[in-house]
C-alpha cells in the first residue's frame, strides 16, 4: 500500500484535469461533481489503506519514503519528487481526504446551478492535490509546491466570483500575504540548507535527512533565524499575527471553500509544517517562545474581533484565526501532539460549522432571491429562529459549537484543554506560562461567547428575515446534510482518540491513542527539549483537574454572557455599544489592522512605486540617458553656429589652429 502513496495526490489531479479540460463540455453537474468527489474519495480509500497498514506495523517502522522521480538536481542541491509517509502525514492525509470528500459531496449540492460549476470542482480537486503534496512531501521543496499550490487554489477559489471586485481583491490579498509567508519559508529553507551544507557538508532539504542530522544543530543561533523564518511562512499560511488579515476577507469565496481551505486544511499547513520540523524548531527556545506568544496573541486578538462581527462567515473566519492561534500556542509550548490533535478536531468542527453556515446562507439566499430582496444573506442580523426551518443544520451546528467552546465530552474540549494545560505546565517558558494560559483561557471564553452569540442570533429568537421570505426557508438537501451529519458526529466524538492521560486513567487506563500514534514523530523533539527544559516540580493531578474545571467554567461564562446578551436581554448589545462606542468601532473594524497595513505597507509601496516610476525612472534614470543625448544635441547646435558660412571665420579657425599647434610645440 505504501508504494501506492503516489496515488493519493494523483486521483485529485486526474479529477482536476478531467474537470478542467472537459468540464465545460460535460455540463452535467452530477457527472462533474461525481468525478470530483469520487476522485478525492478514492484518495481517501488509499489513505485508509495506508493508515491501516501503518497501524499494523511496529512504531519504529512507520516511516516510508517513496521517490517518484528526480526533480531538481543541480550542484549540491538535490530535490526529488518524493513522498514521506509517517504517522504525522497519515493523520493529515486522512483529515484532508476525509474532510475533503465530505466537502466535495457537500459542494455538489451547494454549488448547484452556479456558473462555472466545473471550474469549482476542478479547483477543489487541484487544491486537494496540492494539500496532499504539502503533507506528503518528503522534502521542503515538495512541501513548498504544495504550500504554494494551496495558496494558488485558495487564490482561485476566493476569486471564484471574479466579477465581484471584493472577491478579486480578497484573492489577491490572500495570495500576496501568503507570499510574504513564503518569503520567510524560503529564507528559512536557505538558511538551514546552507548551514548544514557549509558546516557539515550535508546538502539536503530532505526531512528525514535533516532529522538524522538534527543533532548537529546548535541550540538557538542560526536555528533561531531559520525557524523564525519558517515561522513567518507559517503565519502567512495559517493567518497568524501579523499576516492574518487575508483570512476573513477570504470568505468571499464559496462557503465549501471556506470550510475546506480556510478552516480544515490549508490554514493548518503552518501548524503541520512546525510539526513536521519539530526537531528543528525545538532547538530554538526563542522561536518556541515567539510561536507561543504569537499563537496566544492571535487567539485572543482574533477572538475579540469575532465578537463584534455580523457576517456569519466572518465570525467563523475570526474563530478560525483564533483557533489556529491555539494550535500555534500548542506548538510553541512544545505540545506538538496537542497542536496536531487540535488541528484534527478543529478540522471536524470548523468544517462542520462552515458547512452549516453554508447551509444557512444557501437557504437564506434562496429565500431572499425568491422575493427579490437584496438583503445580505450572510448577515446574522437578518437571520434568527432558523432552528425550526433547518433542524439538521441546527443540530450539527450546535454540536460543533459546543465542541469548539470546549464543553467536556466533545472533541474540542479534549484538544483545547490539553493545549491550555500544556501552556500552563510546559517546562520551557518560565514565568510566561501563566500569561500564556491566561490569554488562552480568556480566548476560550471569548470563543464560547461569540460562537454562542452566532448560534443565538442565527437559530434562536424570532425570525428577523423578511416575513415573505420566511416561507421559503427550508432545510437543505441530503447531499448537504449528510456531510454535516458526518462532521457533526466527528466533532462530537473525534476527541476520544486523544483522551488526556488524566481522564484516560480515570476510565481505567484508556491510553491516549493519538499521542502514542504520533510519538515516533515527536520523540526526537522531546529529546532535544529536555536539554533546556527546567525540571521544576510537576503540578499535581489535582491542580490539573482544577485547571480543567476552570477552563470549563470559563467556557460556560462565555456561553452565559452570550445567552444573556442575545437571548435574554437583547438590549444589552446595543447598550454596550453605546457605552463603549470607540471600543466597539475598533473591534468591529478589526482593530483597523487592514487600514494600518494599508497605511504602513500598501500605500507607501504604491506611492514609492509611483515615485520610482514617474520621479526616478522617467526623470532621473531616463533623464540622464536623454540628458546625455540632449547635451550632445546642444553641442551640436553650438557647433553648428560656429559654422557661420563666412570664409574669414573659417580661415580664422584654420589660422587659430596653426597658431595653437605651432605655439604649443615651440613654447612647450
Amino acid at each position, binding site marked *: 500500500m505504501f508504494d501506492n502513496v503516489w496515488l493519493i495526490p494523483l486521483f485529485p489531479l486526474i479529477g482536476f484535469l478531467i474537470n478542467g479540460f472537459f468540464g465545460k463540455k460535460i455540463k452535467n453537474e452530477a457527472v462533474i461533481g461525481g468525478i470530483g468527489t469520487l476522485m478525492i474519495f478514492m484518495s481517501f480509500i488509499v489513505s485508509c489503506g495506508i493508515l491501516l497498514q501503518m497501524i499494523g506495523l511496529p512504531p519504529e517502522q512507520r516511516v516510508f519514503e517513496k521517490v517518484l522521480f528526480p526533480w531538481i538536481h543541480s550542484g549540491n542541491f538535490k530535490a526529488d519528487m518524493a513522498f514521506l509517509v509517517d504517522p504525522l502525514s497519515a493523520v493529515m492525509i486522512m483529515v484532508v481526504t476525509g474532510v475533503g470528500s465530505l466537502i466535495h459531496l457537500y459542494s455538489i449540492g451547494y454549488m448547484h446551478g452556479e456558473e462555472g460549476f466545473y471550474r469549482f470542482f476542478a479547483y477543489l480537486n487541484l487544491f486537494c492535490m496540492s494539500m496532499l503534496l504539502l503533507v506528503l512531501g518528503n522534502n521542503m521543496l515538495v512541501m513548498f509546491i504544495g504550500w504554494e499550490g494551496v495558496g494558488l487554489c485558495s487564490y482561485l477559489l476566493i476569486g471564484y466570483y471574479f466579477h465581484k471586485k471584493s472577491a478579486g481583491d480578497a484573492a489577491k490579498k490572500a495570495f500576496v500575504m501568503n507570499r510574504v509567508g513564503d518569503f520567510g519559508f524560503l529564507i528559512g529553507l536557505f538558511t538551514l540548507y546552507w548551514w548544514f551544507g557549509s558546516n557539515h557538508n550535508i546538502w539536503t532539504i530532505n526531512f528525514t535527512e535533516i532529522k538524522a542530522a538534527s543533532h548537529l544543530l546548535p541550540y538557538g543561533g542560526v536555528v533561531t533565524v531559520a525557524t523564525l523564518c519558517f515561522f513567518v511562512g507559517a503565519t502567512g499560511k495559517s493567518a497568524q499575527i501579523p499576516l492574518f488579515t487575508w483570512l476573513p476577507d477570504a470568505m468571499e469565496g464559496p462557503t465549501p471553500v471556506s470550510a475546506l481551505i480556510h478552516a480544515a486544511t490549508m490554514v493548518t499547513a503552518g501548524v503541520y509544517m512546525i510539526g513536521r520540523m519539530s526537531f528543528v524548531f525545538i532547538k530554538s527556545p526563542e522561536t518556541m517562545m515567539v510561536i507561543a506568544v504569537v499563537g496566544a496573541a492571535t487567539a485572543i486578538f482574533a477572538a475579540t474581533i469575532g465578537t463584534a462581527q455580523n457576517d456569519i462567515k466572518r465570525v467563523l473566519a475570526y474563530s478560525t484565526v483564533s483557533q489556529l492561534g491555539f494550535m500555534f500556542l500548542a506548538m510553541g509550548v512544545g505540545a506538538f501532539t496537542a497542536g496536531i490533535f487540535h488541528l484534527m478536531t478543529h478540522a471536524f468542527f470548523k468544517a462542520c460549522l462552515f458547512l452549516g453556515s453554508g447551509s444557512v446562507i444557501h437557504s437564506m439566499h434562496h429565500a431572499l432571491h425568491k422575493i427579490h430582496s437584496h438583503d445580505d444573506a450572510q448577515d446574522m442580523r437578518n437571520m434568527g429562529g432558523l432552528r425550526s426551518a433547518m433542524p439538521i443544520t441546527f443540530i450539527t451546528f450546535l454540536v460543533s459549537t459546543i465542541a469548539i467552546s470546549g464543553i467536556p465530552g466533545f472533541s474540542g474540549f479534549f484538544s483545547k484543554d490539553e493545549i491550555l494545560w500544556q501552556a500552563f505546565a510546559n517546562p520551557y517558558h518560565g514565568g510566561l506560562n501563566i500569561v500564556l494560559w491566561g490569554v488562552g483561557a480568556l480566548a476560550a471564553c471569548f470563543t464560547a461567547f461569540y460562537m454562542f452569540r452566532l448560534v443565538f442570533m442565527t437559530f434562536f429568537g424570532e425570525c428577523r428575515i423578511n416575513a415573505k421570505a420566511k416561507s421559503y426557508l427550508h432545510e437543505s438537501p441530503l447531499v448537504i446534510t449528510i456531510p454535516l451529519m458526518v462532521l457533526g458526529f466527528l466533532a462530537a466524538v473525534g476527541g476520544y482518540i486523544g483522551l488526556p492521560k488524566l481522564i484516560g486513567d480515570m476510565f481505567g487506563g484508556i491510553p491516549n491513542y493519538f499521542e502514542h500514534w504520533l510519538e515516533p514523530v515527536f520523540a526526537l523533539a522531546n529529546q532535544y527539549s529536555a536539554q533546556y527544559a527546567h525540571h521544576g516540580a510537576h503540578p499535581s493531578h489535582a491542580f490539573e483537574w482544577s485547571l480543567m474545571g476552570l477552563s470549563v467554567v470559563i467556557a460556560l461564562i462565555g456561553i452565559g454572557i452570550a445567552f444573556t446578551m442575545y437571548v435574554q436581554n437583547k438590549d444589552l448589545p446595543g447598550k454596550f455599544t453605546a457605552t463603549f462606542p470607540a471600543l466597539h468601532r475598533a473591534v468591529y473594524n478589526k482593530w483597523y489592522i487592514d487600514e494600518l497595513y494599508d497605511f504602513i505597507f500598501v500605500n507607501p509601496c504604491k506611492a514609492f512605486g509611483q515615485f520610482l516610476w514617474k520621479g526616478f525612472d522617467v526623470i532621473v534614470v531616463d533623464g540622464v540617458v536623454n540628458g546625455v*543625448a540632449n547635451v*550632445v*544635441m546642444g*553641442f*551640436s*547646435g553650438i*557647433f*553648428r553656429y*560656429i*559654422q557661420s*558660412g563666412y*570664409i574669414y*571665420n*573659417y*580661415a580664422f*579657425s*584654420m589660422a*587659430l*589652429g*596653426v597658431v595653437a*599647434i*605651432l605655439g604649443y*610645440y*615651440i613654447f612647450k
Partner: protein
Amino acid sequence: MDMISIPVVNMTPILPEIFLSVLAMVLLLLNVFSPSGKKSYLAYISFIGIAATAVLVGAGWGGHIESFSGAVILDNFATFFKMIFLLAAGLTVLISDQYMEREECNHGELYPLILFTVVGMMLMASGTDLMTIFLGLEVMSVSLYVLAGFNRNNKKSNEAGLKYFLLGAFSTGFLLYGMALTYGATGTTRVYKIASVVGQMTLPSANIMLLAGMLLMMTGFAFKIAAAPFHMWTPDVYEGAPTPMTAFMSAGPKAAGFAALLRILLVALPTLQIEWSQLLWVLAVLTMTVGNITALRQDNIKRMLAYSSIAHAGYALVGLVAGNGTGTAGILFYMLSYAFMNIGAFAIIILVSKKGETNGNVMDFAGLGFKRPLLAVAMTIFLFSLAGMPPTAGFIGKFYLFSGAVQKGYIWLAVIGVLNSAASVYYYLRVMVYMYMKEPTEEFEWTQVTAPVALALIISVAGSMIPGIVPSFILEFAQQAVKLI
C-alpha cells in the same frame, strides 16, 4: 658648357598618370567636336579608360621602382591608393552623367577634369619628393576648385567653388611654408633623403624648424582631409558642389591627403612619431567629435554626409595616430571602403533629389523604403557601413583602425572613437527613420535609375558588403601596401 641632355628615365611608375592625361586630352578634343547635349559617351569612354588604368595600375602590384631622380616611386602603397582614386573616379563618372544632364551642365570638360584630378591624386600617392606631392596636390586642388564650381549657373555651386578656392589657397600657404621650413631644416625635398637626414639627427624633436615644418605640412594636409579645425570648408563645399563631385571629393582627395600624409609622416619623419602622433591624437578626437556632433542636427543630407565625412577623417586619423601596421593598413582599407559606401550614398541622394538640388533634405527620403525598396536597401547598407555596423566594410575598417590604436596603447583614443561612432549612429539612423518609418508628405515621381547609376550602385553595394564579410584579401593587400613604406 655642354648641352642639357634630358636623362633617360624609367617611365613605368607614372604610366597610369600618362595614360590618364592622354586620355583626358583626347576627351577634351572629342568634346570640342561633339555637339552639346550628346556628351554621355564621354562618360563611358572615361569609365572604360579608368578601368583600363586600373588594370595598368594593378599590373604594377608588387613592384618597387624609384624614378625621376627620386621624385616618384612605384610601390604597393601607391598602387593601393591609386586603385582607390580610380575607383572613386570610376564611380563618380558613372553617377555624373545622369545628374549633369538633369542640372543642364553636362559640359564635356567634366570628365577630363575628373581624370586630371585623379592624375594629381596619383602623383600625391606616388610622389616621393615634396615638390611632386605639392604639384600633385595642386593639380588635384585646382581641378577640384573647378569641379566644385562646375555648375556655374547655380549660386551654391559658385559659392562652393569660391570658398574652396580661397580656403584651399590659404591652406596651401601654410603647407608651402611647412615645406620650406622642412627644406631648410633638412636641406632636401626628397622624402627618402629627409628620412636619412632626420635619422642622423641626434635629437630630431629638438630641431624646432623641422618640427614646425612638419606641423605646418600637417595642417596643410589636414585641410585636404578635412580634419578639425581645418575642416570648416567641408560642409559648405560639399553642400554646394554638384552631388557627384561631392561624392568624389569626399572619397578621392581625402584618400589622397592621407596618402601624402602617410608617406611624409611614416617615410620621412618616423623619428618624430611621438610628436606627430601627439598632435594627431588631438586632431583625431577633435575631428571625430566635431564632425559627428555637428552632423546630428543636419537636415540637408549632403551637409550631413559632409560632417560625417569629417568624422570619418577623424576615424582614419586614429589609425594614423597608431602609425603601426594595423592602423595604417586600416586607413587604406577604410579609405577604400569609404569610397564605396560614400559614393553609393551620394548616388542615392542624386536619385532622390530633383533638379536644382531640391529635395536634398533628410525628410525627402520619407517613404523611400517601401516605394523603392531596392534603393532603400542599398542606402541602408551604405548607411550601416558608414555607421560601422557589422557585417559591412565600414565595420572592418573601423575595427582595424581602432585596433591599431589599441595595439599601440591608445585605448582612450579608441574609446573616444567608438563613443563617437555610437553617436554617429543617430544621424545615420535618422535617414533610415525617414526612409522606413515615416510616410511621404507629398507624392512625387522618383527619378529613373539609369544603367550607369545602377552599375555604380551595384559596385558600391558589393564593395560595402563583401569586404565586410570576407575582408581578408583586401586587408592582405593593405597590409602589404603599408609594409613597404
